């Protein structure tokens, strides 16, 4: 079918429109900024991954023999900080979201291109300050910064790390603002709200959380700094403060932050499941509104992190109830994705493997969240490895699977090249196996009673930890393979056509890689989301001419 039905695309695209470092560092093109983010988040993912490997190596044996306790505490703290604030939160919105939100709605760019570039610089400034703190001596408070340990007792670089996180938060806020304004005002003619791909809906919901939640963690960090520097009594009881107040403020942001991480991934998975089974998403409006429901309910469940933190029993019950309630929209999504597969035309391309993997891992991650929402069981499981396993199923099994799936899916559009399909499938399998081997034993270790953040542990937990470390090694290999072949494909990969997957979405109706202005002329949308045309037609609708 490679006969010439498509007019040859312009030789000019966003990648070769301009050359030179300056053309990248001063770009206002959302696609180039997405690539700047892609490079940075991948780097910090690598840093966080090295810390993860160090943790797993230490825990291979019960004795704390590889590092000192002080070093180990810094290692797990820095793993958390790097992964959460500098990889997971920006990963999908700032790379795939940045690239695709304008393309999917038929816009030339985001509403505020300069602010978009500013957000990358702010992110980078925050990251550099944080990396400086890590190199200067590190921080050992856990990524949660619980007081009074962080405000009074820790002798590590708490302020510098906090400053880095504080600053990077503004990049999140600016990205969220940009998305909301863009989705409201820049949709192409005919692109009504209910014709939007679900990727857009989930990014809209994510942007709401970014704008409403991030300021709270910023304020909390400022209060922490006040107490640490000026000894103003806010959280430390020795100064007349309340340490549990910190936990309320911290989780008021940090629980919704989980949804900042996973909602965009859900958006990716909706695209993958629909497009690789050539079916419209079953119950489109239920999936769309469940994203908004998650964004709203997500702000009402922070107290489930405090069931054993001397919060009142009645508050615990209310938060438990609301936590069960927020699980329902997620369940609805899983059922709708499953139903989308029914009577579809399902291909086994790499992105789909990640999408299917997401459904499996997210189901386990979500269901184990119900254990932690159940008050009496949470009393036993809180602060154990069960919690660690649960949130890794959500963040790695959820966010990372969606991120890798999305990266492969849109790679032809982003880079103009195809990735090697065989390697792609192989790596997806390795990641899936390695991931489960790493984290399934941690559920068991948690109920068995192994507390988290332990440098050394009683010998009866060793079997489970050895399994987990073995899995982490496989997972590490599974992560390296895509990094290698994606970089390789940028130069040596097969050239990608405009629409390699034969899909109806707007981003596929322009050349790969796209023009700087995305579309030769503003598209007019006359079709519903996921309205699949005969494959022969997709060849000619490639360019809107």
């Amino acid at each position, binding site marked *: 079918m490679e006969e010439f039905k498509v007019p040859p695309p312009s030789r000019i695209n966003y990648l070769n429109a301009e050359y030179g470092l300056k053309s990248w560092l001063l770009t206002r093109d959302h696609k180039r900024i997405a690539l700047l983010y892609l490079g940075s988040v991948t780097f910090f993912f690598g840093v966080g991954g090295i810390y993860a490997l160090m943790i797993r190596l230490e825990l291979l044996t019960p004795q704390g023999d590889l590092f000192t306790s002080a070093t180990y505490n810094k290692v797990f703290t820095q793993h958390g900080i790097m992964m959460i604030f500098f990889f997971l939160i920006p990963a999908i919105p700032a790379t795939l979201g940045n690239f695709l939100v304008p393309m999917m709605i038929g816009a030339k760019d985001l509403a505020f291109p300069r602010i978009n570039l500013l957000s990358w610089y702010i992110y980078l400034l925050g990251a550099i300050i944080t990396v400086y703190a890590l190199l200067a001596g590190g921080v050992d408070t856990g990524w949660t910064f619980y007081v009074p*340990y962080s405000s009074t007792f820790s002798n590590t670089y708490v302020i510098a790390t906090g400053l880095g996180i504080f600053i990077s938060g503004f990049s999140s806020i600016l990205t969220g603002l940009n998305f909301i304004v863009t989705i409201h005002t820049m949709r192409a003619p005919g692109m009504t709200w209910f014709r939007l791909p679900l990727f857009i809906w989930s990014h809209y919901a994510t942007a709401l959380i970014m704008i409403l939640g991030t300021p709270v963690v910023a304020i909390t960090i400022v209060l922490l700094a006040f107490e640490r520097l000026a000894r103003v009594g806010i959280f430390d009881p020795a100064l007349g403060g309340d340490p549990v107040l910190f936990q309320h403020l911290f989780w008021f942001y940090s629980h919704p932050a989980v949804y900042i991480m996973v909602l965009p991934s859900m958006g990716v998975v909706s695209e993958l499941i629909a497009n690789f089974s050539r079916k419209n998403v079953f119950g489109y409006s239920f999936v769309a509104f469940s994203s908004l429901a998650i964004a709203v309910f997500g702000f009402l469940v922070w107290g489930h992190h405090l069931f054993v933190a001397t919060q009142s029993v009645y508050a615990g019950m209310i938060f*438990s109830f609301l936590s069960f309630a927020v699980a329902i929209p997620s369940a609805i999504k899983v059922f709708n994705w499953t139903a989308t597969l029914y009577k579809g035309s*399902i291909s086994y391309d790499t992105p789909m493997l990640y999408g299917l993997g997401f459904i499996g891992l997210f189901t386990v991650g979500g269901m184990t969240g119900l254990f932690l929402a159940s008050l*009496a069981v949470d009393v036993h499981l809180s602060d154990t490895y069960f919690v660690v396993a649960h949130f890794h199923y959500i963040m790695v099994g959820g966010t990372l699977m969606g991120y890798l799936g999305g990266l492969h899916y849109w790679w032809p559009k982003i880079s103009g090249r195809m990735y090697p399909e065989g390697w792609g499938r192989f790596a997806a399998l390795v990641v899936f196996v390695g991931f489960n081997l790493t984290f399934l034993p941690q559920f068991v270790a948690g109920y068995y009673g192994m*507390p988290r953040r332990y440098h050394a542990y009683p010998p009866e937990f060793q079997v489970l930890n050895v399994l987990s470390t073995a899995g982490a090694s496989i997972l590490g290999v599974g992560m390296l393979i895509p990094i290698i072949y994606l970089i390789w494909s940028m130069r040596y990969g097969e050239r990608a056509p405009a629409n390699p997957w034969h899909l109806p979405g707007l981003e596929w109706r322009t050349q790969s890689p796209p023009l700087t202005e995305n579309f030769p002329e503003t598209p007019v949308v006359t079709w519903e989301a996921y309205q699949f045309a005969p494959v022969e037609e997709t060849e000619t609708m490639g360019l809107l001419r």
Partner: protein
Amino acid sequence: MQTWVPFIPESASTVSGRVDALYFYLSGVTVFFALLIGGVVTFFVIRYRRRSPYEVPRPIAGSHALETVWSVIPFVIAMSFFVWGARLYFIQYRPPQDAQEIYVVGKQWMWKFQHSTGQREINELHVPVGRKIKLIMTSEDVIHDVFIPAFRIKTDVVPGRYSSQWFEATRPGRFHLFCAEYCGMNHSGMGGWVIVMEPKDYDIWLSGASGSQSPATAGQQLFQTLGCASCHGSNGEGGRGPALQGLFNSQVQLTSGGPVRADESYLRESIVNPQAKIVAGYGPIMPTFQGVVTEEQLVQLVAFVKSLGSNAAAPGSPGSAPNASQSSPAPAAAGPKPAAAATPKAK
């Protein structure tokens, strides 16, 4: 020793089996749904695999009936988790009135225990089988957490307030005690053992503590040496300061309004930060004892005040229903809240 399921911690308290039952129910439902969804997805993926690169299946819009079914069924199941978990939580966090009290002070990185007879120990806690034990806990520095997996209990130990939890051990043995809240460098070394003994062995063990004073007696001496008696009366009968006899667990009227319950956290706060809550009818004349007395001495002072008798109308005559309006059925958790809220205002 071990239960029949591998990797389940030993079960040695009256609630541990009940927590396990809920855990098994949750696990069963999880496995069922994971297999159901995994099975259906696998079936669809094989059954509806792409057979020709040109096939375009017919769209299916969706179904309100199905959406309702798969919203309502998970909700009902989730509510069963909620009700079961909440009922059991209530039991875990409502210490019986007749529980024997043991004071716990956590500090980086050790646990100090003191029994009501005065016997002290570090990183080991001896308790009898078949008696209800209430731990009254505080911290000298950062937040810690007493976690005893065999009893399926865990509660944060927070500086500046008392938290509590209770258990009744069901069989003798030696069980892990972990600190479960990250507390700094030697967090993973801040553990120890709970040694459960037959009651008669425990009583012999306790009597081996000859020479040490009970916390209440030590507290009485402190009460005299710190000069508390000059205002509160030598036997706590009151004077320029409010009376302490019968104070514990009573409702106290404050100048700032609203009665508060005089629980352990209230007593502690009134010693270290007396301006925070002024009893109606008295002046703000008491000096702070912050930094003057240690956490262990505070525990002793509180024990002394408690030994002066508690309010006759105290709650929890056995069997009384928990009731929000009448004092606190949620001692550990609810108690400290008003104290905490009031503290910043006092600054």
